[in-house]
């Protein structure tokens, strides 16, 4: 897929403002979701899922495609199979396994690999 510089800049601006949307599927129904609504994107057994406050949607995008789609937004790669919305993190805590556990505002927990913590810090301005 070829993207012009103008399209890319527009995409990043949209993502940053949280207006960019993505399609999520629940059975045969398609839902249009704002990126800002997404808590995290996860790949399980080669299938992609989008998680919002209280619902789960299947997505057609692969991890790298979704990662490209949310460039410039508050979503960041947090592990080998997950992209997490930094805006939805309530707090993080370390675990003995050398990784971090992010507790989200809906009470769910997500693992943040140490490899990606630097990205989270940069995003938050630490």
């Amino acid at each position: 897929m070829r993207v012009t510089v103008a399209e890319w800049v527009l995409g990043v601006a949209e993502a940053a403002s949280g207006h960019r949307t993505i399609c999520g599927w629940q059975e045969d129904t398609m839902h249009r979701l704002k990126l800002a609504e997404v808590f995290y994107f996860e790949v399980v057994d080669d299938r992609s899922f989008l998680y919002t406050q209280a619902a789960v949607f299947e997505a057609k995008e692969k991890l790298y495609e979704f990662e490209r789609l949310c460039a410039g937004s508050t979503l960041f790669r947090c592990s080998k199979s997950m992209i997490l919305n930094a805006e939805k993190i309530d707090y993080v805590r370390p675990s003995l396994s050398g990784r971090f556990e992010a507790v989200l505002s809906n009470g769910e927990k997500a693992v943040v690999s140490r490899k990606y913590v630097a990205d989270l810090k940069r995003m938050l301005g630490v």
Partner: protein
Amino acid sequence: MLMNNITLWVRRYVTVYGIIMLCTFFMCLLFNPTSELPVVTFFGRIMVFTLIALLSLAVYYSKDELTVKAWWVRTALHLLLLEAVLLPLAHFWGFWHGGTDILVYAGFILLAKALWHLVDYGLNAKTAAQINERIRKNRLEKRT
């Protein structure tokens, strides 16, 4: 990303090197306080030990994210690997000699590994505190 990885591995190398030095100091202090070591050779050997310790971290490598149980299994495997490689090498270099020595040395390897995980946990706790502080500030800024 490359810079992050380099920083991470340099930090790990320095931490492991420091822990091995500390353990060696206490081992000498307790069991062989009069020993004199050729400085360059000694530091060189500690560097080799550190390199082996870091290379053995390959047991943690996985294509997928490790579960907590898998992490504990690999931690046990890592300890066994460290003991299996470092004990004969240390014996070859004259760090231990007799029957009780081997137990003490094996204990120090276990202690060094535990200490490494503790240091790692402490550094991560500091990072988590920085992130949480920033999240709290961002939230306050949004409210006002």
